[in-house]
C-alpha cells in the first residue's frame, strides 16, 4: 500500500477520476453540425446547438456506437436501455440552459482498466460507468474589456464521461490510469485523447485517511488538462488535506481548480458551483434502446487492445514484458512496430522470427524512439518510415552494412529523410567483405604495431580489441566486423 508520511503518521490517499473524452464523430451528439477542431468561432453551430425556439435533439447513432465500443473496450456492461436527462443550469455558453446528459441510467455500466506500473506490476481499477453527454460552448473572457465572448462551436459535441471507482492510491497510479485509458480510447478510435486541444479533460476526486479509517471528505479538482498536471494536482491536494487535518482542521467538501503556474489547487468561487441541477428525463428524447445483436456486432469488430497485444508480443514474438509494454502503450508505436516487423520479415525471410522481433524492438525502442522524441514529431509525421527501418535491418542481415555503420546510416536517415539503401550507395558505406582487402589492412596494421603484436603474443590478450579498432579505422569502418575478427585471430596466432 502506498502511503504518504505526515507528522502524525502515514496517510492513505483515495483518488477517483472523471474523464471527459470527446467522441470521435464528424457530427455533434444531437445535431448535424460539424465538430472539427480549430474552426472560426461560431461557424459550426446549428440552430439546435444554439437552442433556438422549437429546435429538437435527435441522437447521433455514430456517437452511441462509439460509446458502446468504448464500453466494450473497458470490458464493461452495456445497458441496452439508457435514458437522457437534462442537467439544468444557467450559463452564457450553455445555450439551452440545460445540458443533455445521462444521470440515473447511463449507456455503459461497470468495467475495468488494468494499469501497467513502472515497476512492471499491474493493478486493476474499476470503472463505475460511462455516459454520453453534450459539451458546452466556450466563454472567451479575454477578447474585450467588458464583455465575454461566446463560441458555440464546441456546444453539443458528444462527450463520454468515464468515471472510475475510488481505486487509485497515488498520483503515479492516476497518471498510469489516464495513460492507459487514453491508449485504449486511441486503439478503439473513439477519442483522439488530445488533452491540449481539450478532447480529454479530467476531474480528480481526492480524499485522505489514516489506513483502515473510514473515507475522508473529498474535494473535486475540476478540468485538469494534462496528465502531468493531474499528478501534480493530486500530489498537492493530498498534502494540503493532510496538513489541514494534522493542524486540527476539517476538510470542506468543495470544488477546486488547479493553478498550473503555482502548482497548487485553489477553491472555485462558490458561485461557480452552487448548482442544484434539477435533473429530469429529457422529454424531447425517447429512452435509448439498443439491440443486443447490434452491440454484439460492435464487439466482434473491436480491434486488438493494448493488453491483448502485449500478451501476444510476449507469447508469440518472445518480447520481454517490459519491451512489449512500451511498444503497446501507444497505438501508433505498436502499429509502427508491427509494420516494421512485417516488412523486414518479408525482406529477410531467412532470419529466425524471434530474432527479427527482438531486433526490430531494439531498433524501435533505441535509436528510433530517441530520434523521434528529439524531433518532437508524432510518428505519422516523422521522416523515418517503417519501410526505411525495415530496409535498414535488411541491409544488416545481408551484410551490406555492419551494426556500427547502421548507426551512422540511421543518423543520416533522420537528417536527410533518405532511404538507407540510397544513403549507403551515396556515401559509399557498403561493408567490405572482400577478404583480400581486409587481409591487406590487417597486415598493414600488424606491421605498423610490431611491438604490440609481440606483447599480444606473449599473453596480453586484451590487446585484441586494439587491433580490431585499428583495422576498422583503416577501413573507415566498412570492414565486416565478423570477418575482421576471424582473420585477425588467425594472423595473430600465426
Amino acid at each position: 500500500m502506498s502511503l504518504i508520511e505526515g507528522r502524525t503518521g502515514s496517510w492513505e490517499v483515495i483518488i477517483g477520476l472523471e474523464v471527459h473524452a470527446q467522441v470521435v464523430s464528424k457530427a455533434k451528439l444531437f445535431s448535424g453540425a460539424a465538430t472539427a477542431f480549430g474552426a472560426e468561432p461560431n461557424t459550426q453551430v446549428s440552430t439546435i446547438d444554439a437552442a433556438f425556439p422549437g429546435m429538437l435533439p435527435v441522437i447521433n447513432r455514430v456517437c452511441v456506437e462509439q460509446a458502446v465500443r468504448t464500453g466494450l473496450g473497458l470490458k464493461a456492461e452495456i445497458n441496452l436501455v439508457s435514458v437522457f436527462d437534462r442537467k439544468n443550469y444557467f450559463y452564457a455558453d450553455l445555450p439551452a440552459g440545460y445540458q443533455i446528459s445521462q444521470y440515473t441510467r447511463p449507456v455503459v455500466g461497470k468495467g475495468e482498466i488494468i494499469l501497467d506500473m513502472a515497476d512492471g506490476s499491474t493493478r486493476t481499477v474499476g470503472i463505475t460507468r460511462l455516459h454520453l453527454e453534450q459539451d458546452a460552448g466556450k466563454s472567451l473572457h479575454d477578447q474585450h474589456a467588458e464583455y465575454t465572448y461566446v463560441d458555440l462551436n464546441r456546444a453539443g459535441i458528444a462527450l463520454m464521461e468515464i468515471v472510475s471507482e475510488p481505486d487509485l492510491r497515488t498520483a503515479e497510479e492516476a497518471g498510469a490510469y489516464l495513460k492507459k485509458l487514453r491508449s485504449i480510447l486511441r486503439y478503439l478510435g473513439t477519442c483522439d485523447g488530445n488533452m491540449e486541444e481539450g478532447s480529454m479533460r479530467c476531474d480528480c476526486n481526492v480524499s485522505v485517511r489514516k489506513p483502515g479509517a473510514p473515507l475522508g471528505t473529498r474535494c473535486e479538482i475540476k478540468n485538469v488538462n494534462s496528465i502531468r498536471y493531474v499528478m501534480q494536482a493530486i500530489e498537492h491536494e493530498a498534502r494540503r488535506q493532510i496538513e489541514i487535518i494534522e493542524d486540527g482542521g476539517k476538510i470542506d467538501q468543495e470544488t477546486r481548480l488547479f493553478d498550473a503556474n503555482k502548482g497548487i489547487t485553489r477553491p472555485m468561487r462558490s458561485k461557480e458551483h452552487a448548482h442544484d441541477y434539477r435533473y429530469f428525463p429529457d422529454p424531447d428524447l425517447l429512452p435509448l434502446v439498443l439491440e443486443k445483436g447490434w452491440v454484439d456486432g460492435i464487439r466482434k469488430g473491436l480491434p486488438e487492445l493494448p493488453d491483448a497485444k502485449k500478451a501476444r508480443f510476449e507469447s508469440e514474438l518472445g518480447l520481454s514484458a517490459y519491451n512489449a509494454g512500451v511498444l503497446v502503450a501507444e497505438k501508433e508505436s505498436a502499429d509502427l512496430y508491427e509494420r516494421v516487423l512485417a516488412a523486414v520479415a518479408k525482406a529477410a525471410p531467412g532470419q529466425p522470427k524471434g530474432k527479427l522481433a527482438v531486433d526490430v524492438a531494439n531498433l524501435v525502442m533505441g535509436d528510433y524512439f530517441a530520434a523521434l522524441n528529439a524531433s518532437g514529431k508524432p510518428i505519422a509525421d516523422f521522416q523515418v518510415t517503417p519501410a526505411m527501418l525495415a530496409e535498414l535491418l535488411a541491409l544488416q542481415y545481408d551484410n551490406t552494412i555492419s551494426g556500427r555503420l547502421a548507426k551512422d546510416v540511421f543518423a543520416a536517415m533522420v537528417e536527410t529523410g533518405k532511404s538507407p539503401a540510397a544513403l549507403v550507395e551515396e556515401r559509399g558505406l557498403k561493408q567490405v567483405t572482400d577478404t583480400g582487402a581486409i587481409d591487406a589492412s590487417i597486415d598493414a596494421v600488424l606491421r605498423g604495431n610490431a611491438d604490440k603484436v609481440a606483447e599480444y603474443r606473449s599473453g596480453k590478450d586484451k590487446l585484441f580489441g586494439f587491433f580490431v579498432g585499428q583495422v576498422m579505422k583503416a577501413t573507415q569502418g566498412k570492414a565486416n566486423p565478423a570477418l575482421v575478427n576471424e582473420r585477425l585471430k588467425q594472423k595473430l596466432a600465426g
Partner: protein
Amino acid sequence: MTALTDLTIAEARAGLRKKEFSARDLAEAHIAAVEETHSLNAYLVETPERALEMAKRSDEKLARGQGGALEGMPLAIKDLFCTEGIQTTAGSRILGGFKPPYESTVTAKLWAAGAVMLGKVNMDEFAMGSSNTTSAYGAVENPWRRRGDNRPLVPGGSSGGSAAAVAARAALAATGTDTGGSIRQPASFAGIVGIKPTYGRCSRWGIVAFASSLDQAGPMTRSVRDAAIMLGTMAGHDPKDSTSAPLPVPDFEAALTGDVRGMKIGIPREYRVDGMAAEIEQLWQQGIAWLKAAGAEPVDISLKMTKYALPAYYIIAPAEASSNLARYDGVRFGLRVPGESLDEMYEATRAAGFGAEVKRRILIGTYVLSAGYYDAYYLKAQKLRALIARDFAEAFKTVDAILAPTAPSAAFAIGENSDDPIAMYLNDVFTVPVNLAGLPGISVPAGLSGEGLPLGLQVIGRAFDEATVLKVGDVIERSAGFTHKPQFMAGGRA
C-alpha cells in the same frame, strides 16, 4: 351564394375545383375579414402580401389541374409555430421581434399542400393559459357574447387567437397546439371544432416548446370534415422530432362514414365534477342520446385516477416548462435587458420578458424539480401519469371511444377567474387527462348554454385512432346540427 369567408374547407375546395371562385378571391375575402375583425385582437402579424402571392401560385397550380389537399385555403397560424422570416413570439415579450430562420415542420407541410398564410394569431404567453389573457400582446375577444350582455368574453386558451379567428370567419381554419386543452377548450368556447391528435402524430419540430411531453399540434376548423382534411396534412412522421411516431397517416376524411352502429362509447363517471353547471350535464346526456340513436352503445366506465390529473399536470407541465424556457436568457435572440453581470442580465431580461403566469409556472417547475422535492412532486406526478394512462388503456379494452364534456363551463368574461389561478386551471379538468395519457381528443360544438354561448362535447380515442375520434365527432356534429354563429363576425351579423 354563401360568403367566401363562411365556407368550410371542404366547400371551398369544391368551389375552387368548379372554378366558382379563385384562390385569389378566397385570399382577398379573408384579408378583408382579418381587417374587419381587428377589434378581436386575434392576429399579431398579418401577412396579406404573402397570402396573395401564395394564392396566385395556388391559382396557377389549380389551372394546371394540380394542387395539394389544402390548395388555396387561407389559414391563421398560432404564434407558437416558427415561421421562416415572420415574427414568432409565442405571445411573449421575450421573443418580441424574433424572426426564425426556419419553418416548423407542420406549417411547412401546410404550405406544401397549398395552404395560404393569413398571419400569426394571438395566444396565451408560451401557451400557458385557458383564456388568452396572459398574452403579452393583449387579450383576445371571443366573437360570441352572452345573450343580452355586451361584456367581452374570453375565447379560451391558449389557442384563443386561432379560435376567435376561425369563429369570426377571419380564417377558414387555424393551427392550434394543445398541452392541457389548448385546442379543445377554446374550440368549445368559440363554437368550432378542434382536435388534439395523439402525442407523436404531428411533429413538434419548430413549435416553441411549452411542455415537451404533452405539446401536440392540431387543427381548429368549422367542421369535423375540415379537421380531418387539415390533420391529414399536418400529421406524419418527422425524423427531426425523436418523439414523432413512425406511422403512416390514414385517410381521415374516409373515416367520416356516419356509421357508429355497434360502437361502444365509454361514459366516465368521474367526469361529473362538483360545481359543474347543470346545462353541461344536460348536453352530455344529449350527446349520449344522439350516439345511442345512431346505433352506438353507451357504456358506463370508470377513470378512477381522474381527480389526480390536474395536480399531476400542474407539476409535470411546469417542470418541463421551467427547463424549456431557460433558453430565453437574452444571450442569443429575443429581448435583452442589459445588466452589470451575466446574472443581472438574466434577471433583468427574464423579469421584463416573461409575464406573471409564465413566471408562476417557471417557479413551480423549478421548485418541483429541486433537490429534496423531486421525489415528492415530479416523480409522484409521473407515477400518477402512468396510472391515468393505465385507466384509459383499461377502458379502451371495452370501449371504442369516450364521450365527455370539453370544459366545465361556457366562455367567461375577460377578467373573470383572473385572480384565482386554481379556478382558471379547473377549466382544463376534462382535457388534461387526455394529454397526460397522450391520446387523441376532439371538441365538437354541440349546443348553446342558457346564456347563448357555445358548448362543446369531447370525444376521446385510443392512441393513433384519430379516425374513430373523427368518426364519432362527425356523428355528434350531424346530430347536433349546430348552425349558430357568433354575434360578431366578418361579413356582418349572422
